Structures are given as structure tokens and as C-alpha cells.
């Protein structure tokens, strides 16, 4: 179908509210786990198909591709305005993909399935909303909307110390968010006093004249909210707990999507609204990112829980992304955003594989696992593939992003780029340790405790269905990332030149 025929149709609202509608349906049919499961899958699949269609059909232009704008709360100057450009197109597509994976990996959810799927779906609405909103209050509402479902996902279905992890996650992000809110309101009032127009529209607020002190103060408010979510060292301490204790779907969403909302917030709002403060902060961000890369790798190497290793590896990868952003040139930004997508796919895949592993062996402990290659060859092949992708093997997805980031950084800070390149070696160290501990060595624990005659079945059909597309994506993004780079190169050059979209 021709997309241009649909200019009047609120496509963005459809994508945004479809999962929410699914949530309502799940709550209506809450007594049937089967119905909820299929409803969740159907909803996420529909969103995915819509996004693939948009991804293929929309032209690779640099401005807004789709826009919606309605009055919402005129007394405060708040509007319901959504817009989609190349970057948000990518992020929403990634969201749609990973949500399908999240539903499929929780297919056998036995504990309160209706509530579980309802929360996963409303989380999708929150994340998509963050990627689409261009009114700052609307953005903030979606930003907060992500918190409550995640709190419940970790707190109800998590492992071990789940309530502690859930609350820690909640308070870290909320503390940042409230700084953001204070900054947003201040900016709104300053703009209102200057022009008499009280509006939260991002494009209006960009025109605000700020003195450098005020600009820095407001920028720090934005920055705090976003770097806590990314997370940048030293704000990362919530992440290992949350990732480790979360159920599989929660980990996939956290690592694959929630971290990206932080990066997205930085490039969409924090940098364009406060360009000169952002420029001043770049070296600082780069140093923190570098520290994060090494520190996280170091800690990751010491972990025995695989989920914790992957969690810390996320901190290291996000360090690369921030480093790329701090380099502030086209190449590095393309690399950073590509790495964001790649990290979503590989880490999402790894968490899915770890969930499958835990399902079979009842453990995630490197000390008791081992020898999987002999008993579960197919599973092990996928595990190896995703681990290699995660450590940045050339030809697989993460490598493309990392090399672009390093090249871009080299042109600005050669020394930093050289250090960061060494960080890749570090990541190889901890990832290979995971591979060694899980796949090779003597046969370790193969059954859940107390379950003596368990079956060592390799992947079933659902799991094949889940892993093959992700694996293909990992290889495709490694060999030929152009289709992903193409839609975002225009918006990136606009962001770098003028600090935002027209």
C-alpha cells in the first residue's frame, strides 16, 4: 500500500496505543492464560508488522517523516504531539521486535500470566511513547509510564532479591526523572517569560535564550535523568541488580530498550535544547564513558552469575555509545546509534538464551555450569554466536558499530580512541570466560535441584522461531548495516549541524 495515501491517518497513535489496547484486552480475559498469551503475541506482532511496513515504505529523508499534533491541556500549554524521524523509526522498530521476543520467551509464564502480559504490553506503549513524543510533558509522562510496569515485572516475577532490585531501579530512575521534570518546568517558565508563549513543545522551547549558567543548570537536570537510565558510570549501580533479578522478558526489555531511551533522550532533547552546555560537557562525558568501559569490564570478569556478566557488559557497551556521542561527528554518531541497535539485538538474544539455559539447568552460575556443547549443541551454537557478536567479532553486529565509534572518536580524541580500542580486548576476556564456563569444560549441573531425571532437550520449535530471526539480524547487521544507517544519517547530520530537526 502506498504510504502517502495515509497522511491523514494517525499511524503513530495506532502504533502507540495498540499495545495499550492489548493490555486492556488482557485484563478483560484475565482468567484464560491461553487467550492472554495469544493476545500479547498478536498485538506485538501487529506492531512489528506495522513498523516493518513503515521501515520499508518511508523515504530516507532527514526531517520528520510522520507527525501528529493535537491540543490536549491548553491551560498548561501541553499538546499531544508525536513525530517520527529516521532515528525514532529505528528505535520503535527495535522495540517492536524485542517485544515480540519478550512475549515469546515468557510463553510458559505460569504465575499470574494475564497481569504479566498486560504489563509487558503497557511497557511497550511507554517505550514507544518515549521514542515518539515531541512535547516535553508528554515525553515525561511516557518516561514515567515505563517505570511502573518494570517495577512490577522485576518485583513480582523476578528471582532472588527481587523487591530490593525493583525498588533500587525505581528510585534511581525516579530521582533522575524528577530532576528532569524540574528542568522542564523551569525551561517552560523562562521561555514563557521571554516570549509570553507558554508551551512545552520541543521546537518552541529550542528558541529560548538562556544565560550560560542557567543553561548548564537545566542541562544537568536533563543529563541526570538520561545518564542514570543509560547508565553511565558512576550512575550504573542499579543496573546489575535489576538485570539479574528481572525475569527473562524484563531483562530483554531493560537491556534492549530501556537503556536506549536514555541515549535517545540525550540526542533528542538534552543536546539540542542546550547546545553550548552540551559542548562543554562532552570531554567530561567521554572520560566517564571510558572509565565505564574499563571498570565495567573489570567487574564483569569477576562475576560468576552469567546475567551479571551480561549486565556489566551492557554498561561497557553503553560506554562506547556515549563515547561516540561525545566525539560529536557524523561517523561516531552513526556508529553509536548502530551500536545501540546492535546491542539491543545481541544482549536481548543473550538474555533469551540465558533464560533458556536457566529453564533447563536451573542455574546461571559459571561455577556449576559447563559442557553444554555436548548435550545441547544447537543451543550452544546460538549461545556462541551471540557471545561472539557481543564481544565484537568482525562480521557480526557489534563490530560494525564499535569500529565506527572508534574511527569517529579517533578524529577528535586519538588517545581516547586508542584506550577504548583496548576496551574491546577486555570485553573479549569476560565474554570468552562465559563461553568457556557454559559451553566447554567438564559437564556441569544439568538439572534443576531436586529434579533428578530431567530431559536434556535441545531447542524446541518456539525457541527456534525466536532465535533464528535474531541470529540472522546479528549477522546481517554485521555484514551489511547500510539499511539501518541510511534512515538515520540524515537526522544525525541535522542534529549535529543545527542541534535539532526543523
Amino acid at each position, binding site marked *: 500500500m502506498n504510504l502517502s495515501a495515509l497522511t491523514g491517518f494517525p499511524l503513530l497513535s495506532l502504533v502507540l496505543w495498540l499495545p495499550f489496547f492489548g493490555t486492556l484486552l488482557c485484563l478483560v480475559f484475565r482468567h484464560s492464560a491461553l487467550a492472554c498469551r495469544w493476545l500479547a503475541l498478536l498485538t506485538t506482532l501487529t506492531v512489528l508488522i506495522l513498523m516493518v511496513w513503515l521501515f520499508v515504505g518511508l523515504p530516507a529523508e532527514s526531517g520528520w517523516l510522520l507527525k501528529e499534533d493535537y491540543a*490536549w*491541556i491548553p491551560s498548561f500549554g501541553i499538546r499531544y504531539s508525536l513525530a517520527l524521524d529516521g532515528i525514532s523509526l529505528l528505535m520503535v522498530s527495535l522495540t517492536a521486535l524485542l517485544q515480540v521476543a519478550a512475549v515469546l520467551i515468557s510463553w510458559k509464564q505460569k504465575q499470574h500470566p494475564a497481569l504479566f502480559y498486560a504489563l509487558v504490553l503497557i511497557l511497550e506503549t511507554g517505550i514507544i511513547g518515549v521514542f515518539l513524543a515531541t512535547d516535553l510533558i508528554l515525553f*515525561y509522562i511516557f518516561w514515567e509510564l515505563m517505570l511502573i510496569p518494570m517495577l512490577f515485572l522485576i518485583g513480582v516475577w523476578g528471582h532472588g532479591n527481587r*523487591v530490593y532490585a525493583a*525498588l533500587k531501579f525505581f528510585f534511581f530512575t525516579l530521582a533522575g526523572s*524528577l530532576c528532569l521534570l524540574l528542568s522542564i*518546568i523551569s525551561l517552560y517558565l523562562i521561555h514563557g517569560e521571554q516570549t509570553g508563549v507558554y508551551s512545552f513543545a520541543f521546537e518552541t522551547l529550542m528558541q529560548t535564550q538562556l544565560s550560560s549558567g542557567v543553561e548548564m543548570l537545566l542541562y544537568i537536570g536533563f543529563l541526570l535523568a538520561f545518564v542514570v537510565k543509560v547508565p553511565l558510570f558512576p550512575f550504573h549501580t542499579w543496573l546489575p541488580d535489576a538485570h539479574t533479578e528481572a525475569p527473562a522478558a524484563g531483562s530483554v526489555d531493560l537491556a534492549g530498550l530501556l537503556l536506549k531511551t536514555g541515549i535517545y533522550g540525550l540526542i533528542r532533547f538534552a543536546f539540542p535544547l542546550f547546545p553550548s552546555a552540551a559542548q562543554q560537557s562532552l570531554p567530561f562525558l567521554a572520560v566517564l564513558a571510558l572509565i565505564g568501559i574499563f571498570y565495567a569490564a573489570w567487574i564483569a570478569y569477576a562475576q560468576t552469575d552469567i546475567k551479571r556478566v551480561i549486565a556489566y557488559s551492557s554498561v561497557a557497551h553503553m560506554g562506547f555509545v556515549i563515547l561516540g556521542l561525545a566525539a560529536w561527528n557524523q561517523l561516531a554518531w552513526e556508529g553509536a546509534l548502530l551500536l545501540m541497535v546492535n546491542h539491543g539485538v545481541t544482549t536481548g538474544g543473550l538474555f533469551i538464551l540465558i533464560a533458556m539455559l536457566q529453564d533447563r539447568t536451573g542455574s546461571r552460575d559459571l561455577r556449576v555450569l559447563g559442557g553444554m556443547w555436548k548435550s545441547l549443541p544447537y543451543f550452544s551454537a546460538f549461545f556462541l554466536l551471540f557471545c561472539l557478536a557481543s564481544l565484537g567479532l568482525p562480521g557480526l553486529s557489534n563490530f560494525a558499530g564499535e569500529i565506527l565509534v572508534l574511527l569517529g572518536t579517533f578524529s577528535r580524541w586519538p588517545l581516547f580512541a586508542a584506550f577504548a580500542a583496548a576496551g574491546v580486548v577486555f570485553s573479549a576476556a569476560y565474554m570468552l570466560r562465559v563461553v568457556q564456563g557454559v559451553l566447554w569444560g567438564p559437564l556441569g549441573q544439568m538439572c534443576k535441584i531436586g529434579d533428578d531425571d530431567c530431559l536434556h532437550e535441545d531447542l524446541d520449535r518456539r525457541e527456534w522461531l525466536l532465535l533464528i530471526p535474531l541470529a540472522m539480524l546479528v549477522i546481517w547487521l554485521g555484514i551489511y548495516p547500510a539499511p539501518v544507517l541510511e534512515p538515520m544519517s540524515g537526522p544525525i547530520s541535522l542534529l549535529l549541524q543545527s542541534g535539532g530537526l526543523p
Partner: protein
Amino acid sequence: MSALELQSLLPLIILALGATGVLMLGAWYPSKNWILGGVFITLLAAFSAGLIDPAVPEVANLYSAGSYARFFVVLWSILGALTLLLSLRYTEIHDLPGSEYTALVLFAICGMGLLSSATSLIGLFLGLEAFTLVFYILIAFKRDDSYSAEAGLKYLVMGAVATGFLAFGISLIYAASGSFHLPEAFAGLQQAGGMRALGLAGWALMLVAIGFKVSLVPFHLWTPDVYQGAPAPVSGLLATGSKGAVFASLVPLFTALGPLKADLEVILWALAALSMLAGTFAALPQRNLKRMLAYSSVVHMGYLMIGLLVGGPEAHRALLFYVIAYVIATLGAFGVLTSFSRVDDEPQEYGDFRGLGYLHPRRSSVLSACLLSLAGIPPLVGFFAKFGIITAALKGGYPGLAVIAILAALASLYYYLSPIVVLFMQQRDARELRRGGGYEFIVLALCFAAILLFGIYPTPLLEVLTGILP
């Protein structure tokens, strides 16, 4: 008093006469169904306030019949109807006399209506005392419960002291200005010299009394004990209506104050900041839902003081929106508590709620929504309430208070999430059902719907508030 004036006062007369009638007839025909009669009377009052145009704008220089006053009469009447619906099963299982209870609630609603309509200091005093007196009885209504008796006595002693302060303060202001009527009562105080010092002393005493009534720090100490001891629906009414009505009456009072407010600024600032901070610290360690709600209401009163301090139509609109958001969510929370109560026990300790979330998912969700709305999490109504107040604080030039408000909001998540964690994230020990009544579910559904609807689309409510503000 002319017939026109009586017509203008009709909604309040309906409430007062209705209460008297229920009390009299109830003596001959005792029945639980008087409560439903009371619901009918409150709804009648609400409709007459909303639909019948008043003949005169002000009655006897005491009470206004303008749109501002009428709005609050409607609001408190609906609150009364909801409280009575909540009490239906509660009074039955605790064997409380239906007609007396109904009459007292109607009197309380009438007092709240009078207070919100007051245009003179005497009217304010009468309205305030009308419902305070009723609450002395309502709080101690469970006669054989020692907590209830303790709460009643505490409220009585504190209330009597506050009444003394209020009367003395009003008389000082009268002595200084020669008028009870607003805004003349303050007009004389605005020039320097003369009786200004006397008037300010009167104001200080009045603030003490107001502080007691709405439990601002340092006058809040009665709050947790009274909330804990009072029957759950009464605690709900006390937490919502009695405080909301005081703030509704303070908005015209502070508007009339004019430039005199500059002299009170330091005190108001301190009251707001202290209430937010001390309330937060006191709420953090609570493990009893009613006591937690009591301390958290202290924090909310601090937020409302910001609205009063800033002043002006926008801040006042934010304040009234906050009052409404707070009333809805607090009523919902106490409503869930009421519906969880059984013949022998009323759950209050967090341990009583362990794992109840999956046994009673709907009511637990309502409780969670109410608590999250009180915490100001979007897309619930509490978010725009907090948003409005913080915007007003920044705009009015009080960034310090805005920062304290943000910090209090962050800390509040800890005590609001604790019950939710207990409800949904802990295993329950026993499979004990806590059956509620159908009327309670109606009230809870209404609260839940209001929290969501006004949270997602607050525009109509904001427009109404803009329209009624004097």
C-alpha cells in the same frame, strides 16, 4: 432573612433539615437504610446546588452563593454521598446505629459547605465548628473500641484548643479593622501603623488554628492517632472533606488579604517546608496504612500551602486541582480499607495486606492506583496536581520550596510503594477472603475512574476551576 436568601442557601438547608429529619425519624424507626436516605439527601443537595441559580449572590453577609461556593457544595455533597455508600456495610458489621451516623455525616457535609462558602470570619468560624463538633462524635463512634475513644478525646482536646485560638484571632482582627466581612476585615490592616500590629497578632492566632485543623507541622501531632482510631470511612471523610473545605475557604481569605500577605510570607514558607519535610520523615518508617496516610496527608498539606503562599489565579487553580486530586485518591484509599474490614478486624498493619493483591486483584489495584496518584506518578491525576503546584512555586519565585517539594515527592515513593510491595510482591500466609459490599465497589470504581480520567485528560476540570475562581 428573606425568602430570596433562603432560596440561595437551599442546598445547605436541604442538608441541615435532612440531617435533622433523619435524626428524628430514626429515633422512632431505627434502620440501616437511613444511610441510603442520607445518600438521597446529599445527592438532592448536590443537584439543587448545581442546577438552581441562586437569587442573591451573598446571604446575610456571611455566606456566598456564587459559583465558587456552589462548586464546593456540590463537591462535598458528592463526597458525603460516597462516604455514606462506603459506610453501609461497615456500620452494619460493626453494629453502629444507622440513622445517627447518617445525620452526623449530613451535618458534617453541611458544615463543610458552609465553610467553603464563607465570606466573613464569623461564617468561617461557624462552618468550621459545625463539622468539627460532628467529627468529635463520629471519630469516637465505635464506643467499645478503646482506640476510637482515644482518638475522639484527642481530637476533642486539640480541636477545642484550636477553636480557642481561632475565636481569639478573629476577635483581634475584628478589633483592629471593625469588620468581620471579607475583604473589609483586612482593608483596615493594610496601612502601616494604627491597629496593624493587633491584626497581625490575630492572623498569627488564626494560622495556629488553621494549622491544627489541616494538620500542618508543628500542629499535626493528633493526626496519626485520630486516623488510626476512627472508623475507616470517618477517617476518609476527615482526611478529605475537612481538610479540603478549610483550604477552599482559605483561597478567598488569602485573596482578600491583598498586600498584607507579604508579612505572613515567612511563616507560610516555614509551615509549607516544615510540613513537607517533617511529614516525609515521619511517614517513612510507618508500617500501618492509616498512620502512613496520616503523615502523608501532612506532606500534602505542605504542598497546598505552597499554592496559598504563591497566590494569584493560577496558583489557586493549581491548589484547588490538588485538593480535588488529593480528595479522590485519599477517599479511594480509605474506601479500600473500609471494604477490607470484617466483623472482627480492620486491616491496618502492612502484615495484614500480605499477598492480598492476588486474592482481591481489583480492590488492590484501586488501592495501588490511589497510592501512586498520591505519589504523583503519571498518568494518574496526582501527577498534574503536583505539576501545577511545582510550576506555581517556580513561577512565584520560590525555587527552594519547589526543590523541597520534588525531594518530598521522591521520598514519598518509598512509603507509598511499601504497601504495594506488600500487596503484590509477598506471599500471602492465609487464604482468607475479605468480602466487600456492592456499594463499596461502586465508590471504588468511581474513584478509580476519576483518578485515571482526570489524569489523562484534566482539561475539563481545569476549565471549570478557572471559571469558578473569584
